[in-house]
């Protein structure tokens, strides 16, 4: 947990003993983040109180998903993963398919990390972090083949649905990738499309405005991601917070199908040697992700 309390040393004398200790701890945390984390891990606990080791449920932060609360979107979800909050909305529009994929629609996922969600982002065009995350999210949706793009076709070569899946981070407390993917998948699950007909004579597509004829998307597979950080080549920290993230050597993200538990992809950022046994570390992560799936799958 990072606290950005600006403190006035002069006033600390008026604080009670425990308050003074907390203040010292937070100053120490800011000055020596690495040592701070090391001391916690030596006690087998993480700074936010989670237990170390990645098998117990308590190694992860609480997750909650709230779908369909945004009426201007065709589908939406709000995901909280510990302090990290991501809201995602799906807007459906109509476009002409590309020439070489006449029967396909479009799925356009983007993640925005506005200046609001963390002091490290500035207002303006997407930051590097946002670009990387958007790319990874797109990749995740594509490799898992979440829904066949052919199912978005209205009239081959003439009209198809474009699903803009826009996620915005409200509070950035680490592991935004897992939270954003969960939000995107949940929002897509929540999305319904109106019945659309293409009129060949006028070349226009019209939709029925009746709620009755709205249909959900033909989602075939729902991927969920579980990310782990590796600290000091030996500690696996599932679901890292924004305080832990900059201190990690390696990040591993495991993508599994939420319903079957089948492994979809494993991605790793940074060197994984695990004191000479990187494979073992990786296997531990995959196993842990499998167990975590049972918890998260309930929310989709």
């Amino acid at each position, binding site marked *: *947990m*990072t606290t*950005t309390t*600006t403190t006035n040393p002069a006033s600390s004398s008026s604080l009670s003993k425990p308050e003074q200790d907390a203040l010292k701890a937070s100053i120490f945390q800011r000055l020596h983040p690495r040592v701070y984390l090391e001391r916690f891990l030596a006690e087998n606990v993480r700074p936010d109180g989670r237990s170390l080791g990645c098998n117990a449920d308590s190694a992860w932060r609480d997750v909650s998903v709230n779908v369909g*609360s*945004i*009426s*201007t*979107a065709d589908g*939406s979800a709000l995901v909280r993963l510990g*302090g990290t*909050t991501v*809201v995602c*909305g*799906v*807007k*459906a*529009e*109509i*476009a*002409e*398919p*590309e020439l070489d994929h006449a029967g396909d629609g*479009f799925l*356009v*996922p*983007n993640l*925005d990390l*506005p*200046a*609001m*969600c*963390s*002091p490290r982002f500035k*207002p303006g*065009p*997407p930051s590097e972090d*946002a*670009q990387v995350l*958007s*790319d990874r999210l*797109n990749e995740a949706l594509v490799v898992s083949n979440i829904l066949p793009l052919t199912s978005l076709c209205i009239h081959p070569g003439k009209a198809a649905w*474009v699903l*803009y899946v*826009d996620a*915005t981070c*409200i*509070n*950035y*407390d680490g592991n935004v990738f897992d939270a954003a993917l969960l939000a995107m998948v949940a929002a897509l699950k929540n999305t319904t499309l*109106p019945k*659309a007909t293409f009129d060949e004579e006028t070349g*226009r*597509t*019209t*939709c*029925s*405005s*009746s709620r009755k004829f709205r249909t959900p998307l033909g989602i075939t597979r729902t991927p969920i991601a579980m990310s782990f950080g590796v600290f000091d080549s030996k500690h696996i920290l599932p679901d890292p917070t*924004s305080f832990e993230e900059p201190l990690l050597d390696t990040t591993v993200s495991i993508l599994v199908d939420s319903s079957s538990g089948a492994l979809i992809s494993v991605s790793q950022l940074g060197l994984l040697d695990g004191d000479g046994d990187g494979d073992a570390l990786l296997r531990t992560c995959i196993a842990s992700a499998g167990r975590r799936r049972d918890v998260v799958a309930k929310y989709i």
Partner: protein
Amino acid sequence: MATQTGFDRRRINGPEESHPPTFQVEEDFESRRWKLGEPRRTRKSADIRPIFLQPGLIDQANGSAYVETERTKIACAVYGPRQSKNAAYNEKGKLNVEVKFTPFSCERRRAPMRDAEDRSIAVAIHQALVPSVRLELLPKSTIDIFVTIIEADGIEGCVASGTVAASTALADAGIEMLGLVISCAASVVGTEIWLDPTEEESRSSQGTLVLSCMPALETVTSVWQSGQIKIEKVLECMSACQERCIDVHSVVAQALVENL
């Protein structure tokens, strides 16, 4: 503006052009539509939408607030006061307001670019807040207020709720203020005054007005009016808004105190 073009290599891009779906007009549309002279459908003319206000939702920020009035959903974070970057010396602090709509916040998808409307709402919120913040105590500093509109139901509602959220977030950040700023919108529909109009209601009104004030000091910090309203109606609107602001003020104060 029917098309959304603009390739941006920093984002995942869709097709070059796409249109929002056009819907068939339902048969009973005309008969169901609200017509001038009919009473307000959803609530009484002087009623406002229920307000849900939660300070301190964004723990990364120095102060924050989330506000929801039925469909309008706004999150606001305050960072600072922090050292002004590359700005000339200023005896007073600077209050910087940035407003951002999420792409899915309106009926039509908003391309994720800064547009004129963002700025116009930011200016309105800035004006409402600036008299309340004791910037004279913060030389060389900047307070950044970031407002994200998650869902919008009427520009006036966004200005009013955004102001309330921002003022709450400022209080949550422990920044010195003269008082809390509360804001309320009114619209003139026929001969009636409807408070806190929705988007549809403000569209069918002759004019709208947003009044921002500090009820604790009984002063007005901003008035933002557009449309066509007779002077005496304007004055009436202002009184109605002010009265409602006093009610909202107690809600906000309560939420703040509970959060402490």
